[in-house]
């Protein structure tokens, strides 16, 4: 018996997954879309690298330049010695991009949710979370001491009902939803949620982690695409997806916004982002704004993969977004399918409960603007081949148009 014996059940799962060989280590990464895995050149179709900017020459140059001139790290908190000119410039650029008064940069996206949620919702307040929210939202909700209520995934009606039950109770209400949900790639019904927000006097926060650079004419995310940016009080996002680095942020017009710099503990009690990361992120944001063609290729690739898989008879998520999830009937099939894909030179994410909604097992793909049409077609061909080898795509199932 060790102190970790309390995790015996999880240990069994970990060992089982390890024995299946599903813990992946890349020998090397060659580009945003290719890496070496077990000595084999592999297409990367599960990276969140939506705009494919991780190897962008200008971003790398900026990172190298900043690292040479300012060092590898700040060795300190934003509220002590860790605020450099670059951090402020990045915050200004984000505020400008979103057309908001204020922006705050965090060292990770996870910490952005932890910090913002815990600062906005205190004892006596009410936090209303979509049931399928990301772990960082659930964890942030625990840090703030507010009352946490889940509403049914993407159900404005259920949200409304729960806000109605709170009528008369003191305290602020904050609704939290995501632009694109990371498992199935579905978007929130934001217009309807914004209407509920207006009617009930709640605040609204949208986590655009997977939708920044993906949705909206300007790439600002779901709030822009749904035309309800004025109703969204706080936007949270990350640099580790479309912007190809690491870090998180929040933007808002709240006049008291800056007080969060001394009440957000996940902002204060951690080292700030290294100058190289700040510099490459700033450049990536410039690229996102100046090159709408990146978003156009991303969407084209997403549609090609989504409709290709659908035509073969795979059961995909509800919308053709850059996250394309393929449902598997059970964990054994999911693991077998995933391994064969990998052996054929295609990497994607194996997602199993409880990470997934409704206890479903998923093969989760995410496309990049950097994928070529040929790479998407190769991925589709590998899916077809493995599907047939495993007897997964029988003629009957194809005719039925689904596999579940």
């Amino acid at each position, binding site marked *: 018996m060790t102190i970790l014996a309390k995790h*015996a*059940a*999880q240990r069994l799962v970990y060992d089982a997954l390890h024995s299946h060989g599903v813990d992946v280590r890349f020998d090397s990464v060659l580009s945003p879309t290719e890496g070496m895995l077990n000595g084999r050149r592999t297409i990367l179709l599960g990276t969140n690298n939506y705009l494919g900017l991780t190897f962008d020459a200008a971003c790398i140059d900026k990172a190298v330049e900043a690292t040479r001139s300012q060092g590898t790290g700040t060795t300190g908190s934003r509220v002590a010695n860790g605020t450099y000119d670059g951090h402020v410039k990045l915050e200004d650029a984000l505020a400008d991009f979103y057309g908001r008064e204020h922006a705050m940069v965090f060292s990770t996206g996870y910490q952005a949710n932890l910090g913002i949620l815990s600062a906005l919702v205190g004892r006596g307040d009410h936090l209303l979370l979509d049931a*399928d929210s990301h772990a960082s939202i*659930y964890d942030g909700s625990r840090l703030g001491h507010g009352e946490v209520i889940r509403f049914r995934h993407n159900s404005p009606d259920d949200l409304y009902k729960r806000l109605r039950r709170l009528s008369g109770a003191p305290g602020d209400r904050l609704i939290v939803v995501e632009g694109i949900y990371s498992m199935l790639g579905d978007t929130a019904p934001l217009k309807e949620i914004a209407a509920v927000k207006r009617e009930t006097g709640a605040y609204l926060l949208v986590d655009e982690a997977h939708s920044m650079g993906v949705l909206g004419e300007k790439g600002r995310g779901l709030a822009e695409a749904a035309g309800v940016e004025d109703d969204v009080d706080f936007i949270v996002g990350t640099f580790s997806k479309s912007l190809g680095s690491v870090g998180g942020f929040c933007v808002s017009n709240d006049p008291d916004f800056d007080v969060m710099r001394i009440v957000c503990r996940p902002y204060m009690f951690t080292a700030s982002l290294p100058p190289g990361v700040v510099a490459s992120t700033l450049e990536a944001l410039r690229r996102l704004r100046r090159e709408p063609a990146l978003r156009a290729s991303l969407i084209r690739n997403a549609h090609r993969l989504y409709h290709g898989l659908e035509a073969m008879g795979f059961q995909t998520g509800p919308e053709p977004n850059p996250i394309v999830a393929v449902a598997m009937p059970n964990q054994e099939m999911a693991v077998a399918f995933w391994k064969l894909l990998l052996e054929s030179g295609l990497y994607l*994410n194996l997602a199993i409960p*409880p990470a*997934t909604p409704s206890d479903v097992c998923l093969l989760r793909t995410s496309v990049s603007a950097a994928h070529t049409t040929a790479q998407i077609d190769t991925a589709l061909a590998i899916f077809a081949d493995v599907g047939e080898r495993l007897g997964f795509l029988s003629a009957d199932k194809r005719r039925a148009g689904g596999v579940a």
Partner: protein
Amino acid sequence: MIFSPGVEAPVAKLLRCVDLWSGVRGLSGGMRPIRQLALVEDKPDAPETVVLGDISSIFEQVLGHPVRINDHTDIVEDLGMDSLGVMNFVMAIEDFYDISIPLDRIAQIQTVSDLIHAVEDLRSGTPE
């Protein structure tokens, strides 16, 4: 592999307490004294009995088969509910009684009697 859920309960069926946040109270932790309530057979007219009957039929709707429950029934352990089942069950209870059970309250619920107390408290507006 992805393994970083909002509802973290790596092996749902091994969860003993209904803890939709961490799940890690699992095997040894999370136990708490069980409050004794009257069984159905003992006090058919007590208000708890009415609630127990309603809860029993909600269980049956969610699980799709008849169940026999009493106050000591452990919701996860005895009824074999996984984390999704628990979530659906809690949502059904919330709809039936027109309440929202906050997550910290759900985390404290292990037995049917815990659930009854939580529902009664929330219906009467008592915070804890």
